[in-house]
């Protein structure tokens, strides 16, 4: 440090002696350049650290959060049951929504004007109608359907109807979320396909590769590079979007938390914290998976693969 400071002093001293505009007086060559100091960054860092510490301290010591009750509820079977429903609905709608999205995107990009218009119309409709409205309409449809099915002679008895109730609500929730998800996924997939250079389509066509092969092996792997980050964003929205299924009487994580808080009004805050932490865990897992999936699809697109956190850690330890 002191040697650099000395060099700086020399540099300043040397400046007036040289003619203006002519660099590299003999004493200046071979000197190290002193990096620009950033005092503002240090000030900002201190402010952020103090605020963060204050927040964490409050979180830990404020009795308002009732961390003992949080511990009590966190892994209760009733909460885990809700968590399972959340996972189930998310996974089903994510897969069905993505498949639907691929079909819609291909329809939209097809040269058939009717298919293209139909796909556009679908996306327009489901992006315009709030998810909660879609779910409630489907819920009421299914209620209507059940009433009708009761009128059919030799149909299922009343008791079996009750047993099927949960499954039916799961179906309503999954269908509603999938329909909504497909509309957004269609745009994500379409953007991904359009991001692939037209030269790739031409090269595949010039080699006479069959249409399906062109899409599956040439276009899609390259499109996924653009699709994955956008779709994971969508997926995280979906995880939290599943909390709306409470309104079609499906008790997911949020639903169970709501039900428990009306039974134990004193535990509202810790119960909400339980839901929060579980949702944070779910999105964190998805983000980690995203990193590795993105890395997988960056093959060939970058000269060197970005290191995994484990590789980075190993490199740091070795140095």
């Amino acid at each position, binding site marked *: 440090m002191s040697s650099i400071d000395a060099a700086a002093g020399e540099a300043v001293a040397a400046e007036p002696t040289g003619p203006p505009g002519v660099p590299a007086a003999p004493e200046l060559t071979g000197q190290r350049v002193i990096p620009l100091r950033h005092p503002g960054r240090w000030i900002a860092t201190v402010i952020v650290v103090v605020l963060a510490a204050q927040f964490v301290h409050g979180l830990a010591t404020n009795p308002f959060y009732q961390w003992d009750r949080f511990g009590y509820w966190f892994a209760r079977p009733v909460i885990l049951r809700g968590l399972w429903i959340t996972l189930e609905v998310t996974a089903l709608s994510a897969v069905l929504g993505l498949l639907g999205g691929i079909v819609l995107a291909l329809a939209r990009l097809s040269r058939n004007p009717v298919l293209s218009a139909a796909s556009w119309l679908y996306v327009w409709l489901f992006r315009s109608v709030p998810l909660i409205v879609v779910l409630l309409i489907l819920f009421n449809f299914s209620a209507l359907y059940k009433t009708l099915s009761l009128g059919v002679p030799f149909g299922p008895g009343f008791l079996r109807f009750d047993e099927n109730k949960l499954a039916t609500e799961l179906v309503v929730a999954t269908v509603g979320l999938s329909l909504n998800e497909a509309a957004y996924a269609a745009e994500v997939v379409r953007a991904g396909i359009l991001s692939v250079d037209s030269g790739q389509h031409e090269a595949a066509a*010039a080699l*006479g590769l*069959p249409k399906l092969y062109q899409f599956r092996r040439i276009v899609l792997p390259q499109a996924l590079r653009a699709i994955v980050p956008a779709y994971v964003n969508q997926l995280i929205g979906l995880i939290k979007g599943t909390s709306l299924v409470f309104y079609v009487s499906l008790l997911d994580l949020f639903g169970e938390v709501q039900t428990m808080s009306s039974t134990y009004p004193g535990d509202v805050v810790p119960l909400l914290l339980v839901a929060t932490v579980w949702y944070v865990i779910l999105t964190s897992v998805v983000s980690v998976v995203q990193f590795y999936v993105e890395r997988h699809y960056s093959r060939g697109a970058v000269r060197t693969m970005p290191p995994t956190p484990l590789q980075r850690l190993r490199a740091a330890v070795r140095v």
Partner: protein
Amino acid sequence: MNAIAAAVEVHGATKSYGAHKVLDNVDLTVCPGHVTVILGPSGAGKSTLLRVINHLEKLDAGYVSVNGALVGVRQHGDRLKELSERAILAQRADIGFVFQNFNLFPHLTALENVAAAPVATGRATKAEARERARELLTRVGLADKADVHPRRLSGGQQQRVAIARALALRPGVVLFDEPTSALDPELVGEVLATIKDLASAGTTLIVVTHEIGFAREVADQVVFMDGGRIVEQGEPAEVLDRPRHPRTREFLSKVL
């Protein structure tokens, strides 16, 4: 029309983009094993003519045949009807195409790029295709780059992989669309040398290029195009050294 089987025959090829005629009644015959070089200013219709031969572009009128078979269309009485996309894709296997910007598949290794088409079109098993791909990469001097992704190759190396890829289906004719125009000057030589090797091995080639030296050395036939028409064609010595048409003379005086 020639009775002998021409490798490529273009007859009355006409194509317009709106009011602009890119190809205006073009006739071209390429004999098997011959190298045809197409010269001309940009916008002359050279690339379009090449892309018409493997039906990447459709003709408004006229037809193309490769090894005696109509490309992209079939005869129906005295009319020509467009073939299905599947049939066109099958036909393209017989016509290799090398692009100016290589257009290698970036997510596949050099070997996978070369081996993809024979497997996808059901002409070879995976093992056969990989073996042939290795041979082809050796032929273009890149045996040691088989497992490398295109982005880690130089432009010249990428173009040589692209040439190997075009040869993987054993096409009757290979089309080159300005294969060296996107390369650094010092990399042009290696690609031209690879094309020369093909020519001396008796492959039928049609090359759109600005490399006059290459045309003089390798071509059996030089075609000069301007404004969507073939202005002049003949042996390289004729067209390059004693051009008859003033437009050819003007062009050559600028590029030589």
